[in-house]
């Protein structure tokens, strides 16, 4: 009840003219940033820091929070329309949304992601409002063994993304894990596989890798044929641009599941929205009755990771506000902003500065509403981009991709990564090696390795540390089930084929 009272006071502050203005500025900027590849919230919030100290702390933090969750809305737009994930967490949106666009359902895909983002964002803010202290306590119980087994579960999902050839899928996954080991080892500080170069000390940037494997590779596949007219059919009538009732109904369950997965994963420092969206995607595929439809433009496959991506925003603010622990790059900069304003994040922040914290939370409700109102009418505008002839679109994609990856770290090395992996990605498509397992393993691998080594350091090398907590055991069981699923399906399929061949054989012998 106290939380409700504080929240209503927060709304009263957030709905003031000045704060409402900054909510809209932050949300709009965030959406634009999300659309552009490479540029992410961390960089832009860092740029806005000097501006934000000239306004009140509440207004400044409201604006930066707006950028944070606004970017989630925009990130899936280019992923769906052009197969360019605006950020790493939009890769599942590219996997499912782009095939939908290819079928002429770009508008429907954008509509679903906007509505799902609104629902998930609202769910996560409600959970943040009422569950922050409880969730913070659970997150504190998440040590390296629990973290490792959760990441192992995520990596095991490679088997679900392997496509037609399990062996090629596993090779791609193992390659992704291996590429992620390039750079300075997080535990010992030793450079690994840097070949004496300074640029490789930071490893391979994930966004550069994904833009290469998805955006650049897609262009190379499409330019095989002369690019005359528009690439995909785009309906003209508004009704055909929006999702159907059946599509919206099929998104309900995945949205709820994705929201919870995303919110919880977002509370884990280091896990992030990328891990959340991949976990939600692979979980949805695992529980689906039609897993073979994933990757072909399947609405549940689009809804779950989008929900997780947006719900992770609220979750990520919990360790930041309650414990002073940033979960990733964006929340680390928000932490800097809080300290700049003279606010000490931690358990006392809610009690010492309710006049700052609760308006931020209230502004997230307002921002979610503003974003859905802004984005829904823009769907026909965004979808109409696909009406442009491809010879206009693809040079634009090349320019945006290359300048976008340059803007990540300001170095040409990332541009070369995108170019090289673009060519590699084209080759992978031609020979049937899927990119999704490589990308998933690349994201989760470093997190899993660090947690594994920390766990074994704690237990002096004993593997039994992974069997000491119920959470670890639960994740390990789920991992085994996840790995077993494709093999049991294959076994059932083989049994059916053998049985039907035996039936045919006995009918022929009767004849």
């Amino acid at each position, binding site marked *: 009840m106290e939380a409700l009272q504080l929240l209503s006071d927060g709304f009263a502050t957030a709905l003031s003219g000045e704060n409402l203005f900054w909510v809209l500025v932050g949300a709009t900027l965030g959406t634009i940033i999300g659309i*552009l590849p490479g*540029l992410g919230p961390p*960089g*832009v919030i860092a*740029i806005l820091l000097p501006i934000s100290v000239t306004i009140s702390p509440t207004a400044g933090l409201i604006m930066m929070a707006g950028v944070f969750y606004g970017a989630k809305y925009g990130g899936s737009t280019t992923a769906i329309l052009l197969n360019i994930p605006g950020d790493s967490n939009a890769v599942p949106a590219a996997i499912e949304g782009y095939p939908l666009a290819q079928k002429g359902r770009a508008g429907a895909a954008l509509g679903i992601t906007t509505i799902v983002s609104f629902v998930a964002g609202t769910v996560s803010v409600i959970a943040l409002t009422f569950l922050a202290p409880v969730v913070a306590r659970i997150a504190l119980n998440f040590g390296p063994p629990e973290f490792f087994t959760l990441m192992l579960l995520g990596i095991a999902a490679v088997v679900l993304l392997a496509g*037609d*050839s399990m*062996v*090629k899928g*596993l*090779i791609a996954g*193992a*390659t992704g*894990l*291996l590429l992620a*080991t390039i750079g300075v080892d997080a*535990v*010992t500080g030793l450079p*690994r*596989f840097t070949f004496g170069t300074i640029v490789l000390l930071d490893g391979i940037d994930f966004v550069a890798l994904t833009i290469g494997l998805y955006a*650049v590779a897609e*262009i*190379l596949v499409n*330019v*095989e*044929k*002369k*690019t005359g007219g528009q690439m995909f059919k785009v309906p003209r009538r508004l009704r055909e641009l929006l999702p159907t009732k059946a599509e919206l109904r099929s998104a309900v369950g995945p949205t709820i599941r994705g929201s919870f997965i995303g919110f919880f994963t977002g509370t884990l420092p280091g896990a992030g929205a990328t891990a959340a969206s991949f976990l939600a995607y692979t979980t949805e595929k695992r529980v689906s009755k039609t897993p073979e439809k994933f990757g072909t433009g399947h609405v549940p496959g689009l809804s779950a990771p989008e929900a997780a991506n947006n719900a992770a925003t609220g979750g990520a603010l919990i360790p930041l506000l309650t414990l002073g622990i940033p979960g990733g790059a964006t929340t680390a900069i928000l932490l800097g902003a809080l300290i700049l304003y003279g606010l000490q994040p931690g358990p006392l922040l809610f009690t010492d500065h309710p006049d700052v914290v609760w308006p931020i939370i209230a502004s997230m409700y307002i921002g979610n509403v503003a974003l859905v109102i802004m984005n829904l009418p823009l769907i026909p505008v965004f979808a109409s981009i696909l009406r442009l*002839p491809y*010879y*206009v679109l*693809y*040079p*634009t994609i*090349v*320019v*945006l991709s*290359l*300048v*976008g990856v*340059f*803007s990540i770290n*300001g170095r*040409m090395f990332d*541009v*070369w990564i995108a*170019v090289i992996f*673009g060519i590699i990605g*084209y080759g992978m498509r*031609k*020979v*049937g*090696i899927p990119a999704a397992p490589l990308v998933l393993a690349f994201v989760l*691998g470093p997190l899993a*390795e660090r947690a*594994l080594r920390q766990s*074994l*350091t704690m237990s*002096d*090398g004993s593997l039994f540390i992974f069997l000491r907590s119920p959470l670890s055991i639960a994740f390990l069981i789920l991992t085994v089930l996840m790995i077993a699923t494709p093999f049991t399906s294959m076994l059932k399929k083989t049994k059916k084929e053998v049985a039907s061949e035996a039936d045919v054989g006995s009918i022929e012998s009767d004849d």
Partner: protein
Amino acid sequence: MRKVDIVVGFFFACFGAYWIWQSSRFEFIDVVPGPGFLPMVLAVAIFGLSVLLVVTRLLGDDESFGTFKAPKLGELGRVGAVSGVIVVAALLIPVLGFLPTFVLLVATLLFGIERTFSVGAFLTVLVVPFAAYWLFGVMFGVRLPTGPLGV
């Protein structure tokens, strides 16, 4: 696809073997896994999976593994040309600067490869690089590489 898979398998087997050699230079395990542990395990896995891929393809028949749609020579030529233009653009960015390089890139793609001289093509050459420069360089303050022209 069978023959393609065999070639792919050999390639990844060599990749895995090379990485086994590279990983052997780091500590594997001393009570706890060292920096060489995961790379070695993964390199061995890649090598093993690649050998499995080659063996299964050698023992199987052509129909079991799908068909490989080889790109025609003309298609490969277009892909090679576009890739080449992008690579040359990446080489020229630090020399000429962002804006001139991307104007040249878009112009080469549209006039040189697509051989399209429509109004839309000219507008794309004029608008896209400048719009990207304004958005990233001016609005978001990204320090884009400059060349002798200062842009």
